[in-house]
C-alpha cells in the first residue's frame, strides 16, 4: 500500500479518491453525481409558489394584460380591503367566519378521532363505524345541505355541523389508516411488557397514528374552509361568503376578490400551522421531508 503510493508520486492538484477523500473531510460526492431525494429544505420555501402567483397577478395588471373587469388589480383589491375594514364591514364578517371555521374544525376533528380509534382498535367497532363513514364519504356536503337545513334550521348550529361533517372524513380515513399501519411487532412488545390498554393506546397507538392524523389534519383544515364557503353562500346573513355573494349581486369584482384572497390567506396560514406542528411533533422521524 505504502509502496504503491510512493510509486505513484501523484501531484498535489489531483483530487484524492474514495476513502482518502472521506478522511480528508472533503466533499464525499464526486462531481456530476446528484444526491437522490429532494435535498435540503428551503427556508420559507412554502411561500415561493404563492408569491410567484402574486407576482404574475401584479405584473399582468400593471402591464394591462389583465382586464380589471375580469380580475381586479391587486392594489385595487388592497384598497377595497382597507375600505371594508375601515367602514367596519370586514371585521365582524371575518370574525364570524373564523368562529364557524374553528368550531366546525374542533368538533369534526374530535368526532373523526374518536371514530377512528373505535374502528381501529376493535373489529366490532370497525364493523359498525367504517361502513357509515365510507357512505358519508361518497355523499358530498352540498347534497346533504337541504336535509341539514330541514333538520337544524339556518342558524349557526347547521353551519357548524356541516363543516364538522366535512372535517370528520379526512381525519377518520387518515388516522384509521395510520393506526392500522402501526407495526404489529409493537403490539407484541406491548404484550410482553404487559402494558395496560390505556398505556398501549397512549404510548403506542396514538403516537404511531400521529403521522396519519396530521396528514388528515391538513386535509381537514382545507375541507373546513371549503365547507365554510358553501354554508356561507347558501343561507347566511353574515360572514365572508355572504359578503362575496352580496358583492356578486352588485357586480363588485373587487370585493369578491377580497373574499377570495382572504380565504386563500386563511387557508395557507392554517395549512402552514399544521405543517409546523407536523415538523415539531414528528421530529423522531427521518424521511425525505427532512
Amino acid at each position, binding site marked *: 500500500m505504502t509502496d504503491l503510493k510512493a510509486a505513484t508520486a501523484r501531484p498535489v492538484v489531483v483530487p484524492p479518491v474514495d476513502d482518502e477523500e472521506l478522511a480528508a473531510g472533503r466533499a464525499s460526492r464526486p462531481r456530476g453525481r446528484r444526491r437522490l431525494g429532494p435535498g435540503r429544505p428551503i427556508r420559507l420555501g412554502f411561500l415561493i409558489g404563492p408569491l410567484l402567483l402574486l407576482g404574475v397577478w401584479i405584473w399582468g395588471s400593471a402591464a394591462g394584460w389583465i382586464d380589471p373587469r375580469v380580475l381586479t388589480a391587486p392594489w385595487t383589491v388592497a384598497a377595497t380591503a382597507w375600505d371594508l375594514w375601515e367602514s367596519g364591514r370586514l371585521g365582524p364578517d371575518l370574525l364570524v367566519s373564523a368562529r364557524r371555521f374553528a368550531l366546525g374544525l374542533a368538533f369534526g376533528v374530535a368526532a373523526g378521532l374518536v371514530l377512528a380509534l373505535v374502528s381501529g382498535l376493535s373489529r366490532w367497532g370497525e364493523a359498525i363505524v367504517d361502513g357509515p363513514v365510507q357512505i358519508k364519504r361518497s355523499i358530498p356536503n352540498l347534497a346533504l345541505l337541504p336535509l341539514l337545513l330541514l333538520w337544524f334550521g339556518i342558524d349557526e348550529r347547521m353551519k357548524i355541523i356541516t363543516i364538522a361533517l366535512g372535517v370528520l372524513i379526512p381525519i377518520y380515513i387518515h388516522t384509521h389508516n395510520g393506526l392500522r399501519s402501526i407495526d404489529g411487532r409493537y403490539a407484541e412488545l*406491548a404484550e*410482553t*411488557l404487559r*402494558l395496560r390498554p390505556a398505556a398501549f393506546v397512549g404510548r403506542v397507538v396514538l403516537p404511531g397514528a400521529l403521522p396519519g392524523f396530521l396528514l388528515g389534519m391538513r386535509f381537514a383544515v382545507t375541507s373546513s374552509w371549503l365547507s365554510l364557503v358553501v354554508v356561507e353562500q347558501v343561507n347566511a346573513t353574515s360572514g365572508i361568503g355572504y359578503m362575496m355573494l352580496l358583492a356578486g349581486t352588485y357586480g363588485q369584482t373587487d370585493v369578491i376578490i377580497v373574499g377570495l384572497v382572504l380565504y386563500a390567506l386563511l387557508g395557507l396560514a392554517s395549512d402552514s400551522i399544521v405543517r409546523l406542528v407536523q415538523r415539531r411533533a414528528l421530529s423522531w422521524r427521518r424521511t425525505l421531508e427532512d
Partner: protein
Amino acid sequence: MAAHPGGLTAAAAVQIRDLHRSFTDDRPVLSGLDLTIAPGEFVALLGRSGSGKSTLLRALAGLDRVAKDGNSKDGDASGSGDVTVPEQVSVVFQDSRLLPWQRVLRNVVLGLQGPGALRRGKEALAEVGLAGRERAWPRELSGGEQQRVALARSLVREPELLLADEPFGALDALTRIKMHGLLRALHERHRPAVLLVTHDVDEAIVLADRVLVLEGGVVKTERRIDLDGTRDPSDPRFAAVRTELLAALGLAGGAEIKENP
C-alpha cells in the same frame, strides 16, 4: 445454581412438560418437548432453521396465544402441554423493537409504574453503558446501542426469566463480542434464568451454562458447559465442545456453519 436441573423441580424457573405445537399446515414443530430451567441458569438453545427454537420461545413468552384447551385464540399456532414460567418474564427480540417515537429513557421505562420508574430506568441505562443518552431518539443510536437499550428495558423489570430470540443476530462481529461480555456481566449481577435462542454455536458456548440442541421437535442433545473462567474460542476444550455441538447439528467435523443463516 442447580447442578442437576431436572432434580429441583419445585424451585425451577421454567418447567415444560410434553409441549406440542403445530401451525395451520399441521406440520408439528414441537412434539412432546420437556425442559426445566433452574433459577439463574443460563441456557442456550441451538437448532437448524425451522427446528422450533422461536416457537418454543414464543410459547414461553405467551405470545403464541395457545389457550389451555389447546386451541389458538387468534394466533395461528395450536398445541398442548404444561408450561410453567415465573411471574416476571422479559423478552429481548432480534430487532431492538424500540418505539421510534419515544426517547430512549421513555422506551426503557415503557409500562413501568411507580414513582421510582424514571430513576430505575436511568440506572438500567447506566448499567448497559448508555448513561447520558436518555434523551436520544432510537434512530440516533447504532444497532448495538439500540440492542443495549432493549436489554436495559428488559432488566429494569427485574425478570426472573429472560427470553432472548437471537438478540445479537443482526449485529456485526465486534459489537457482538462486546455484547456477550455485557450480557454475561448483567447475568452475574441480576441472576435471571435465561433462555437464549441462537444460531451461533460459539455464542452459545461463550455464554451458557447449558446448551440444548433442538431437533425433530424435542431436545435432542444437551451439553453442560463446564469451561471455567474466560471462555476462549482458541482453547482446545472449547473447540471440543464446539465440534460436539456442530455434530449434533448435523455438521460432522466442526465444518463451517452454512446451514443456519
